[in-house]
């Protein structure tokens, strides 16, 4: 990469994310697709912390962090202010948050933003865990994952619940465009962000972003893990317009992998392979993947 390219990065180097951070990769990709004419809001979480340690900032675009649960509300205020001030000349408002800031504590704010119909793109970086505070469970933590608040033990196989179906909840609000994406496929992220920004109204993009420290994987495996999630069917990639699925990322038969391939390298699933009875749980997770393949028609 040339110096010029480095300097023109909208989310600059020098931040303090872990080596191999999927969220950093995804966020940089989002911003490169969105361009300079944006205003970003950011919920409290890793992305905020690793990019803006005072007095430094990675952001070469206007950016504001307020609290953990209000990225969507702050974005709403920005969008309305731009219109009221006559400054809504193509500037895109983008709200960013982790899965906790989106699916748990920020759910009400997101719902309000969607329902009021603001012209905002909301991006959820889904690390499937509260990364920033030491890997606690969120509503988007998958079945049987070990987190610090859903530990494994004699009485526990880790997280006892399935991922909240957030895209469906967002769709029920009438969002104009919804997409799921993956840090394993940056070009796909870029296409989806550009497409999202071509719509007027509330848009939602949820990007599967491996958290190497929280998941317990080697830092060079970020992209491979993200791709395995997609190619096993555990993280279906699709796009919705006006509530209808308009496109899915097909898994070629040769690329299809069993969930094993995704689960085994991750320490958060190690208990499934260490203790008797774990195979039953792996089967349940495989069933989740199979159901996704069926539901979204992923094979092809």
């Amino acid at each position, binding site marked *: 990469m040339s110096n010029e390219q480095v300097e023109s990065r909208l989310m600059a180097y020098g931040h303090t994310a872990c080596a191999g951070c999927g969220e950093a990769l995804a966020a940089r990709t989002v911003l490169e697709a969105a361009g300079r004419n944006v205003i970003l809001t950011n919920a409290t979480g890793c992305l905020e912390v690793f990019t803006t340690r005072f*007095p430094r900032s990675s*952001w070469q675009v206007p*950016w504001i962090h*307020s*609290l953990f649960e209000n990225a969507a509300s702050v974005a709403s205020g920005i969008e*309305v*202010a731009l219109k009221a*001030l006559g*400054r809504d000349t193509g*500037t895109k408002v983008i709200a960013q948050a982790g899965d906790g800031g989106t699916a748990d504590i920020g759910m009400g704010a997101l719902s309000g933003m969607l329902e009021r119909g603001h012209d905002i793109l909301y991006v959820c970086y889904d690390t499937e865990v509260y990364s920033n505070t030491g890997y606690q469970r969120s509503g988007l933590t998958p079945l049987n994952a070990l987190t610090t608040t859903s530990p494994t033990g004699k009485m526990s196989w880790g997280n006892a619940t399935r991922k909240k179906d957030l895209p469906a909840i967002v769709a029920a609000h009438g969002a104009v465009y919804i997409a799921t994406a993956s840090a394993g496929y940056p070009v796909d992220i870029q296409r989806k962000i550009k497409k999202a920004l071509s719509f007027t109204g509330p848009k939602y993009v949820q990007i599967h972003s491996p958290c190497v420290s929280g998941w317990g994987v080697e830092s060079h495996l970020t992209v491979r893990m993200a791709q395995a999630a997609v190619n096993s069917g555990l993280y279906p990639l699709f796009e919705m317009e006006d509530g209808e699925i308009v496109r899915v990322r097909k898994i070629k038969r040769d690329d299809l992998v069993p969930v094993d391939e995704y689960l085994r390298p991750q320490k958060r699933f190690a208990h499934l392979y260490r203790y008797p009875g774990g195979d039953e749980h792996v089967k349940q997770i495989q069933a989740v993947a199979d159901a996704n393949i069926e539901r979204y028609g992923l094979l092809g």
Partner: protein
Amino acid sequence: MRRILEGSRAVAEFVALCRPKVVCAYPITPQTHIVEDLARMLADGRLDAGYVLADSEFTAASVVLGASATGARAYTATSSQGLLLMTEVMFNIAGMRLPVVMTVANRAVSAPINIWNDQQDSMSLRDCGWIQMYAEDVQEAGDMHIQAFEIAERLNIPVMVCMDGYILTHATETVDVPGPEQVDSYLPPFEPRFYLTPDDPITLGSMAGPDAYMEIRMLLHQAMQKASQAIVDSAARFAGEFGRFRGDLVEGYRDSDAEVLLVSMGSLLGTMKEVVDELRDEGHPVGIIKVRTVRPFPRNQLHEALHNARVVGVVEKDISLGLEGILCSEIRSAFCGASLTPNISSFVVGLGGRDVRKRDIRKIALGLLSDDTCRVEMTGVDHEVLWSAHQIED
């Protein structure tokens, strides 16, 4: 123009005259009429502003935060539970130096749930970094909003205008509503010192560690201390332009040569002034100090105003449970290190809308004249109710 208006309506009219660019609030009694009146003005085209129907007070505060950071004059209003729900955002707005203006229709805090007036809500949030001013009547509440926007935007500090719920928000009074030209000349359009724009990207709300957090908080504290002078200037300039002066930080009433000084804030002052007039007629040396600005706390002005009195009784509608009235403790701090200190007593009155009658105030004043021992009292408690509540608790 003199008009007969309900307090909430008056506030809405005054806020509209300030030409906010973004308005966002969530309904809660007794604030609701204010946002309803603003909504009607927007619907009629009498007010031109971005208007957001918030899903909670938390969102309402966050929306005005975002709008203010984008360079828009932003307004919200709330009360009681709504204010407490906003708490996290309140600190955040102040920490980011955003000049938001908010009306608090003062109301009691749950439990027990109670929609009537006291000042526990805003007094509980006195440390969140907002300037806090308390209005005595509807006219002052209206005028205070014009001053609030001017002060907030000059200093980049948010301002909370507190007015007693029901007693002021739902009282119909004659109000002098200024013309738009007059307000425009006092309050110029908002010119933000910094705002979010792609033309000049800034980062707002970054993380400061132990190496910088304390310095940033210190700057906030210093800015707040300097705000006292701005409030004084602003009230003087307002008096020049509008012909009305109701005090700036503190204001005395028949206080010279008073042996007993009663201190209070908000609508209680009206009742207290009547009582003091009567007591003066009877020859009792009693006066009043009104606290108009609670933050920044006018420590020097209060010391100056109170130090010649023998006895001070702080009469207020809030309590720091386990201590005493909040304002009373703060007034004690004004005498820290002083060689001569009046005897200062705390009187907590009117919680949850309990009527504060002239005879209650009279009893407090006469009690202090005959016995100046420092004490903490809850005045106006019904002992039969207390007894039965006690039985239930046991």
